């Protein structure tokens, strides 16, 4: 009998620590599938962020480094410059990439570093307990925006992907979603594109993935997916940004 579905070689056979309905497990698998399909496991170096995905290296079966909160793209810049023949990517959440690490993000993009970025936008800080993120939607309740995000007090949801698209060093930016199986397949295609761009020396590529966090959204896993479709995608429209 033909085997049509199996565990990726780039994923260890271990359970993840993520909450039920969390998007990280799916996103990890998409990265692993892309690495397998491109046959680059032995030359891939991943940078795990500080945040819920901090131990991503416990799940991925290739070389990985941790990075201090927000500094993944500084670390990745150096690794890629030292080993230009390797495939180097960062995997970062919204707090990591668009709050504490905004400076590193913008400057790595502006230098046109030949890197791939997997950017998980779940509109909330997960690991620290559900605080306001730079991408939290207006009106969204978090433990530090108790009455909901209010523009006068907290500013607006930060559209870092649209900002980065203005930089000439950036080659490719696409926003995708994990809201439904067809969207997940599109997300995988985008990640693959970002990795292929790097292999072809085209410069900085970033895939923003709208990803569910049922725990800190106070929703069930199913409701979370609907919320991405009905609410989050209105603020963060899907599609190719650059």
């Amino acid at each position: 009998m033909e085997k049509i579905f199996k565990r990726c070689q780039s994923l260890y056979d271990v359970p993840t620590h993520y909450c039920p309905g969390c998007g990280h497990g799916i996103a990890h698998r998409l990265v692993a599938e892309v690495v397998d399909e491109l046959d680059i496991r032995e030359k891939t170096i991943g940078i795990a962020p500080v945040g819920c995905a901090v131990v991503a290296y416990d799940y991925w079966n290739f070389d990985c480094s941790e990075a201090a909160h927000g500094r993944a793209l500084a670390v990745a810049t150096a690794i890629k410059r030292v080993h230009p023949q390797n495939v180097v990517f960062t995997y970062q959440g919204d707090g990591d990439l668009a709050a504490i690490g905004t400076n590193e993000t913008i400057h790595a993009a502006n230098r046109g570093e030949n890197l791939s970025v997997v950017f998980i936008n779940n509109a909330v800080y997960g690991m620290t307990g559900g605080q306001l993120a730079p991408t939290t939607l207006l009106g969204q309740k978090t433990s530090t925006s108790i009455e909901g995000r209010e523009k006068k007090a907290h500013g607006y949801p930060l559209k870092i992907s649209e900002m980065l698209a203005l930089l000439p060093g950036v080659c490719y930016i696409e926003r995708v979603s994990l809201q439904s199986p067809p969207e997940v397949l599109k997300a995988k295609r985008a990640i693959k594109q970002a990795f292929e761009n790097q292999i072809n020396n085209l410069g900085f590529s970033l895939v923003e993935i709208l990803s569910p966090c049922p725990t800190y959204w106070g929703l069930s896993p199913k409701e979370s997916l609907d919320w991405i479709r009905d609410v989050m995608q209105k603020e963060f429209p899907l599609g190719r940004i650059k």
Partner: protein
Amino acid sequence: MKILLSGNEAIAQGAIQAGCSFYAGYPITPQNEIIAYMAKHMPSSRTGVCRTGKGQSQGVFIQAESELAAINMVYGASAAGARAMTSSSSPGISLMQEGISYIAGSQLPAVIVNIMRGGPGLGNIAPAQSDYFQATRSGGHGDYHLIVLAPACVQEAYDLTQTGFDLADRYRVPVMILGDGILGQMMEPVQLSTKKIKVSLAKSWALDGCQGRKPNIIKSFFLREGALEDANLKLQKNYAIIQQKETRYEGLFLSDAKVILVAYGTMARIAKSAISQLRSAGKKIGLIRPISLWPFPQQPFSIKNSRVKYLVLEMSYGQMLEDVRLAVGGRREVEFLGRSGGGVPSEEQIINKVKKIL
């Protein structure tokens, strides 16, 4: 052949001589000559592109967007197996502390140069030695140490930078070269090494793709119960070996001295001038110049003469003083003379103080 170099240039040249293949930095006075020198002299610094197929690139120079980025680039380059260095001055080194803690926690080798200036805050750009605590007491979070080397002349700045890279690799620890604005800016003749530039050791732990081996992971995060304690005990064991093997100091006239001056870096030069004046007037004065500030040299303080007194001299209000007191252990008198904020104790002030003590 000797050439005239500033301390900053000598450190940069020493790094290149030691096979430093990655430098990231951010401008700050008084160490700007280091970043400029590295930009000019790092091989293939403009492209940063590998010329050697699999293996390391010839050399990468990056002007980072901040000291935070610079130290984390050094972290990444070191994780990738390069001999990596950054340099800065006091306020910039403060910004780097988190990254230095990660480097220590992840057991990565790196060389960090601090050409100290006056503080606190923005302070000024005058020479100072007021980051001694920060350098020797693990300036970032967690239980860790840097090896801290303090050159007193430009030749030593060149030599110790090379030693720093070797020690960093041997023990997988960050090494700090601690100088001040005078050392960085001053030019002196330097005898350049004629040895062939060293190739770094094979680093089986480094990240370069898991071809034919299990994946390597560089991290300082140990969440499982007991795992961090185990990792920290491993670091402590390494530190104990370093303390045993890597203390460095210069001792002068210790056998007959009645007063021993204790000073490092620029301050030790001024102490030496004072000593030569005092000795030509028949006064028995000696010098202990710690070269490694961590590990701090304890051994020269075990002098038998029970009437010997120590005078600690610093361009700070008394930081190394604490290490001297610990080394002396209350057995002898320890006096102090220090100035800060751009003030440097002069020969005359030292001589007057010594005369009072004698």
